[in-house]
C-alpha cells in the first residue's frame, strides 16, 4: 500500500489534526535529512517506551494505576505516531512502515529503552529517567526555528507535564518507603545509570540542526542540563547521585540488538508480520 493510498483512508485523516501542516520544501536537503534523523530517534524512543510500559496493562499494583500507567503508555505511542508522520513528510516514507516494518537493527531508540519491564520500581525509574530527559529535549525543541516542529512539540509538552507529575509522585513514594520499595528503586537506578545518558547520544546531523536553530542547543549541553536537574531531584529524595559522564556516541546503535529489544520487536511487529502488505 503506497503513502498516497494511506492518505486517502478516512481513519487516518481523522487521526491527523495533531500534525501541523508544513512544507518540507522550505528546508534545504541537509537540514531535512538531519531533522528526519532527530525526529526518527525521538519517535523510536517514544514508541519503544510506550510498548514496554503497556506491558503493565492488567498487572499494575492497583486497578487505578493500571489505567493510569496504560494511559501514559498510550500517550507515548501517540507522540511516536505524530513524530513518525513528521518524518514521513520529510522523507516521503510511510509512518506505519517506519513503526512496524523495519528490522530490529534499524531502530534508533536510546539504549536506556532496551531494558525490559522488570519490576514496578524498575519501570518507574526507567520511565522517570526517560521522561525527564525527554522533557529537556522537548524544551529545546519548543524553541525551534522550524515552526511546525515547535508547534507539535508544544502539544506534546502539555501531555508530558502530567507524565512528569505522575512519575515524580511514584519516585517520591518508592524513595520514602524504606525496605523493599526503596531497595528495588535504588537497584533499578544502579542498573539504568550507565545507559541513562544515551537519550542525548550525539546525532550525525546535529551541527546542521543547531546552526539552523532547528535544535536550540547541542545534545551534550542538554545532557548537562538534565544531569543537574535530575541530580537535584535525587538529592531531594535522598537517593544516590548519578555519575557525571558524557553521552555515549553509540547510545542509539543497534547493530547488535539487545536480546530484550529483539523480544519486544517480535511482539510489537507480530501482527504486522502476519501478512505482508495487508490493508487494515
Amino acid at each position, binding site marked *: 500500500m503506497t503513502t498516497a493510498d494511506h492518505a486517502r483512508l478516512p481513519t487516518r485523516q481523522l487521526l491527523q489534526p495533531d500534525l501541523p501542516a508544513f512544507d518540507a520544501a522550505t528546508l534545504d536537503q541537509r537540514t531535512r535529512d538531519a531533522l528526519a534523523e532527530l525526529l526518527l530517534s525521538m519517535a523510536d524512543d517514544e514508541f519503544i517506551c510506550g510498548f514496554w510500559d503497556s506491558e503493565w496493562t492488567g498487572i499494575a499494583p492497583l486497578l487505578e494505576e493500571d489505567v493510569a500507567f496504560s494511559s501514559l503508555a498510550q500517550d507515548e505511542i501517540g507522540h511516536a505516531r505524530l513524530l513518525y508522520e513528521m518524518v514521513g513528510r520529510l522523507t516521503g516514507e510511510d509512518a506505519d512502515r517506519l513503526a512496524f516494518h523495519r528490522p530490529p537493527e534499524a531502530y534508533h531508540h536510546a539504549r536506556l529503552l532496551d531494558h525490559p519491564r522488570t519490576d514496578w520500581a524498575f519501570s518507574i525509574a526507567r520511565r522517570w529517567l526517560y521522561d525527564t530527559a525527554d522533557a529537556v529535549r522537548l524544551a529545546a525543541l519548543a524553541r525551534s526555528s522550524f515552526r511546525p516542529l515547535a508547534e507539535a512539540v508544544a502539544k506534546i509538552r502539555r501531555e508530558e507535564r502530567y507524565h512528569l*507529575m505522575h512519575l515524580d509522585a511514584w519516585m517520591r513514594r518508592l524513595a520514602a518507603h524504606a525496605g523493599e520499595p526503596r531497595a528495588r528503586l535504588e537497584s533499578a537506578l544502579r542498573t539504568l545509570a550507565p545507559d541513562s545518558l544515551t537519550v542525548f547520544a550525539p546525532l550525525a546531523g546535529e551541527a546542521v540542526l543547531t546552526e539552523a536553530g532547528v535544535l536550540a542547543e547541542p545534545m551534550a549541553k542538554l545532557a548537562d542540563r538534565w544531569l543537574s536537574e535530575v541530580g537535584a531531584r535525587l538529592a531531594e529524595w535522598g537517593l544516590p547521585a548519578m555519575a557525571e559522564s558524557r553521552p555515549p556516541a553509540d547510545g542509539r546503535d543497534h547493530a547488535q540488538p539487545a536480546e530484550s529489544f529483539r523480544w519486544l520487536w517480535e511482539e510489537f511487529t507480530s501482527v504486522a508480520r502476519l501478512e505482508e502488505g495487508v490493508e487494515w
Partner: protein
Amino acid sequence: MADQQGALSEGRRDEAGRLGDGADPGVWEVFRQEKDGEPMRHAGNVRAPDRELALHYAREFYSRRQESVRLWVVQRNQISDLSDPDLLQPPLDRTFKKPGGYVLRDKLDAAKKRAKASARTQAADKE
C-alpha cells in the same frame, strides 16, 4: 462526632457506615465540572493511597477524554452524612411550607370551567 453522625444517620446506617470516621481512608469521592459555570457534580470514586495519586486517578477516570474542566477529590472519611428521615422527610403535612401550597392551578381550572359553562348558557340563550 461519630456518635452524632450515627444519630443523624438513623435509619440509613448502611450508607453512613461507609462515610465519615468509619470510612475506608483509601477511597476518594470525585466531583467534576463539565463546563465553566456549571455546578460540581458527583462523578464517582477512586481508590488511592494519598491525595496526590487520588487526583491523578480522578484525572484518568473522569477527564482522560477531556470531559471535565475541573475535578475535586474528597477523602470519603471527610464526608459527613445526614440521611435521618425524621430530619429530612418529616411525616406531617408540610405543604404550607412549599410555594406549591399557593398554586393558582385549581382556581384557574375552576375559572375556566365557569367561563365555559357561561359561554354555553349564552349560546343556548341565543338559540
